[in-house]
């Protein structure tokens, strides 16, 4: 196992798939010559050449349209949308075209494509460059939605996304790009739709995604050590398909559910999971379902303000202490 950063795992995943399948092509803004504004795609242009790694104009609709048209006709494109906030400028392509064409044509068209994008807060970029919008994507039927928390998952899930016959929206966490972790050597392909239980407890099940997985793990450690509260921590990893079985069976064991979400509160992914649990696990619950989210508001830019807005380890600890037991 090599140690890679989350950032380098992106390039490693893309490279693995491009090397293996000529149909995999990659396009986006500043991704080639510059290696990406987050340096996630350094070396790909050199390795695969300008025919397969293509810099584009600032034309997000054209980028996703091109990916869609190419995917319908036999390629397996990976498109980068630089910041997930910018999905808004090409949301029609995501929500109305890419997500729907297979269904509308009754299966005539397949779209094996991946849209990668940098998601989330923590860089003091302000409200238009810091959003966690995984819930926007989850709300759209017809696209799969993945958000890894660890370098190994970046590589493995990205490879799985590229091989998947359906469109996948792949959220990379900006603030995790520098995170290091072990990544299996050689070909590494994971599975979409499997949540992972990272820690097993008995008092409460914490369900988290991406950056919030790390905060949940830290909080769980503190809760155990300092407060005698023992938590299960689940990394959802994939919002669509959603591994409800893992979530439900862990909630049954602890009797409590806490979601930790970076998205602003209303209609966040945690609301969906809460509603599933409140239906299917109702009789196993020992107390209220708690959602810890960014408050329902835009993000401020200044460092202290931003840090105090998205869920922190301290807040997770505090809310669980107040609300569990």
């Amino acid at each position, binding site marked *: 196992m090599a140690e890679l950063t989350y950032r380098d795992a992106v390039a490693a995943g893309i490279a693995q798939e491009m090397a293996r399948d000529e149909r995999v092509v990659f396009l986006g803004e500043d991704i080639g010559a510059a290696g990406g504004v987050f340096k996630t795609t350094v070396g790909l242009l050199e390795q695969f050449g300008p025919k397969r790694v*293509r810099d584009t104009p600032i034309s997000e609709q054209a980028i996703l349209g091109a990916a869609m048209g190419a995917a319908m006709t036999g390629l397996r494109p990976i498109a980068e949308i630089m910041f997930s906030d910018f999905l808004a400028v090409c949301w029609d392509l995501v929500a109305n075209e890419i997500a729907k064409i297979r269904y509308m044509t009754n299966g005539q068209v397949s779209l094996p494509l991946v849209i990668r994008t940098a998601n989330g807060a923590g860089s003091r970029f302000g409200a238009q460059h810091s959003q966690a919008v995984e819930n926007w994507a989850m709300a759209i039927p017809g696209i799969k939605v993945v958000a890894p928390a660890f370098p190994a998952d970046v590589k493995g899930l990205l490879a799985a996304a590229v091989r998947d016959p359906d469109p996948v929206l792949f959220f990379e966490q900006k603030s995790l790009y520098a995170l290091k972790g072990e990544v299996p050597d050689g070909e590494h392909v994971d599975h979409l739709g499997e949540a992972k239980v990272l820690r097993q407890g008995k008092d409460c099940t914490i369900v988290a995604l991406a950056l919030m997985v790390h905060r949940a793990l830290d909080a769980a450690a503190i809760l155990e050590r300092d407060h005698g509260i023992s938590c299960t921590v689940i990394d959802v990893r994939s919002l669509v398909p959603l591994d409800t079985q893992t979530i439900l069976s862990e909630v049954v064991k602890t009797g409590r559910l806490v979601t930790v979400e970076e998205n602003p509160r209303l209609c966040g992914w945690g609301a969906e999971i809460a509603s599933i649990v409140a239906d299917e696990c109702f009789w196993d619950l020992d107390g209220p379902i708690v959602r810890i989210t960014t408050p329902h508001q835009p993000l401020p830019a200044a460092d202290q303000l931003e840090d105090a807005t998205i869920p922190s380890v301290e807040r997770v600890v505090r809310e669980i202490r107040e609300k569990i037991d």
Partner: protein
Amino acid sequence: MNTTVKRKKAAANEDDIGRDVRLELYRMQVELRYCEKRAYDLFLQNLIKGTSHLSLGQEAIAAAFGVAMRPDDWTFCTYRGHAHTLARGASMAGVLGELMGRECGLLGGKGGSMHLTDVTKGAMGSYAIIGAHLPVAAGAAWSAQYRGTEQVAVCFFGDGTTNIGAFHEALNFSVVWKLPVIFVCENNLYMEYTPIGSVTAVEHPAADRACAYGLEKIVVDGNDADEVYRTAVEYMGRARKGGGPALIEAMTYRHSGHSRADPAKYRPEGELDRWLERDPLKIYRERLLGLGIVEATLKDIENETLCKVDDATATAKASPPPSLDAIAKNVWADGGAAWRN
């Protein structure tokens, strides 16, 4: 930048196109006309439930491109796409069945009138959100270029579509990547009900934008199938050989309202009549007669086509509504709709 308006007219009686192609151009126009008229009748019989947008009056464009295209070329069109889909050889019963929401429909009733698609014929979809399919067509062209297949993507859209952002992005992108894609603007003078001239900064909504992409300004008579055919052959040929995209504006007119709900009262007195004089079928029929093709040949085409439309209608009518099982099928490539385990 060449700003000359292209007029692909031939000298009188010149038969550069050839009798066989001409007859096929006529046959195709008749087929599109008859089928659209049938769609209208079926609507009056309340057999078509959703909306529908007819190409009556605009058939020359879809027909000419249909005839000019290679079987493996790709068509991308709009909600006003019955003609363009048929022109690629899609099943007429499949088209009418889809409009009627029947099981035999091209999309099994799931897409409806606005989304006709037959991938086996290169009819790569009808898109109902203005502008979206222009970049998608560029993407198909990219894949042809990447694989070196010399396929061309042809993308049809209306005058109103030239004012939306995706138009601009697709055009620039296609030129920069030199993609084999032909953008065909069917300028029928109206958006839904608003005259295009009242909302557009230039006279020719597409052709006057060609300069912004370093493209030739091309305006053709969209009611003259020969002129459209010649233009299609020239620019598709060029695109196939790596010459990059073209943007063609074809002037035309729709004889009916925007959609089935529209009586088209907003048109100035006499406008429709003037355009009916320039009906593409009428023009073409007269031309063929002038070229020495006998009335009986044309009558045969017309009669055969009518039979074809009748057969298709009967097939579509006989088809049951789709089974409710279809609802949860084909969200995903595995055939199902599951989002959870």
